[in-house]
């Protein structure tokens, strides 16, 4: 199932992220894809507020590679912008970046695909900018765990 949402402002992006975050479950992996400046970190902020993390705690993990936030569930906020080759992931422990009992949000997720099996609870969230302020978010997942969530998000205003 594919859900599309237009996000007309920063507040819109945060609110949408919050709606999504509030329904995420332990083990969920959200791949946040999109060009630089599209709003991936802003969306991650929104998702984290939906998991009861204060908005100001959520900042770009580009330099740290992974930020960990204590929320309703433990959240790992990953950013692979600085990694260029698949072997570069080898030094990381999978459970550190993608905690099995928490929620993982991965920006610049291209390289991490090699870690993910076909049956994992992965949500693809593509965000793009069109025109000035307006963003378009596209959500898709083949995982049964996300079917109901996508269905609900589809019906939300």
């Amino acid at each position: 199932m594919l859900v599309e949402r237009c996000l007309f402002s920063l507040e819109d992006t945060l609110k949408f992220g919050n709606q999504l975050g509030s329904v995420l479950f332990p083990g969920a992996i959200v791949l946040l894809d999109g060009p630089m400046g599209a709003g991936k970190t802003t969306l991650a902020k929104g998702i984290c507020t939906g998991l009861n993390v204060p908005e100001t705690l959520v900042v770009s993990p580009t330099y740290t590679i992974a930020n960990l936030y204590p929320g309703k569930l433990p959240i790992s906020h990953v950013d692979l912008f600085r990694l260029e080759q698949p072997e570069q992931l080898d030094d990381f422990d999978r459970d550190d970046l993608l905690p099995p009992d928490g929620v993982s949000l991965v920006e610049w997720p291209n390289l991490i695909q090699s870690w993910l099996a076909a049956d994992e609870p992965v949500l693809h969230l593509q965000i793009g900018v069109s025109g000035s302020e307006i963003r378009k978010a596209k959500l898709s997942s083949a995982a049964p765990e996300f079917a109901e969530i996508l269905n609900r998000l589809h019906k939300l205003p």
Partner: protein
Amino acid sequence: MNAIGLGLDTTFDDTSAAILRGTREVLANLTLSQYRDHKEFGGVVPERASRKHLEVIHPLIREALAKAELDFADLDYIAVSNLPGLLGSLLVGVTVAKGLAWSLDKPLIGVNHVESHPYANILASGPWEFPVLHLVVAGGHTLLLRADGHFDYTILGRTVDDAAGECVDKVAKMFGHPMPGGPVVDRYALEAPDHAFAFPRPLLNKPGLEFSFSGLKTAMLRFREENPDDARKQEPAVLSSFFQAVVDVLVKKTFRALDSEQLTRLTVSGGLAASQKLRKTFESECTRRSVELFYPPPSLCTDNAAMVACLAAHRYAQGRFDDLSLDAFPNMV
């Protein structure tokens, strides 16, 4: 008191070991940069970071001791950055420091890497009096701290999204420059017109001391898309004007903090502080407003273990040590 300390820093991409006597006498300060050492990979290769730290840290410590003409037995304490940073990288430094502290039976001191940046100023120009305002502009952090004593802080402002240094690096990359892009942007900032283009100064018109640089990054992206000719033909002026926006935000927020806190002393530190443009702007503004400025040379702005040892020397003087359960943490707090 002239205690001798070993400082270790493996927070991000560099491995650094330093030997400090007292609070200011740097006997050795050696840093291996992953940027330089990994040029052949086209820039920083963070995945290699922890492995590389592990390969070089022991030889680096021995080299530092040799340079200082000292032996392990001469050390009075072992200091190490244990936050914030890349967990795998941090653990290399923390584990080595624990091993040394245990085998030498010397105190272990865990240091917040970001908190240690201002201490580069003590190495460069001597101690400051309190209260003092610290502006830290490191790659991953932008922070305004009020200090009323050593280790007595109030966080006045920090970034709500991207750090200033990250914004500069990403915009430089957007224009085709390899990471880290700070030096090339700084060169343009000194040579090209800095008001040729008007770019936003995020949060400058709002009260408060929080920083935000993500909107400026997006504005640069849009500018490049909408004005491809300017972006190509006038790149130096575009990037110079962009950097002026970054400098404006940093300088104005810092003076807002000095005013509202009624402070007259300022330190600037962190990787982005290596910028000559930022230094010149702070120097002239501080002279104009009679603010006492502490600003380290570029070699002490980038990550180094001497600043870590310097902060630790102040902890040592207070007898504030850590035990061997010291852990590494990726986040600031």
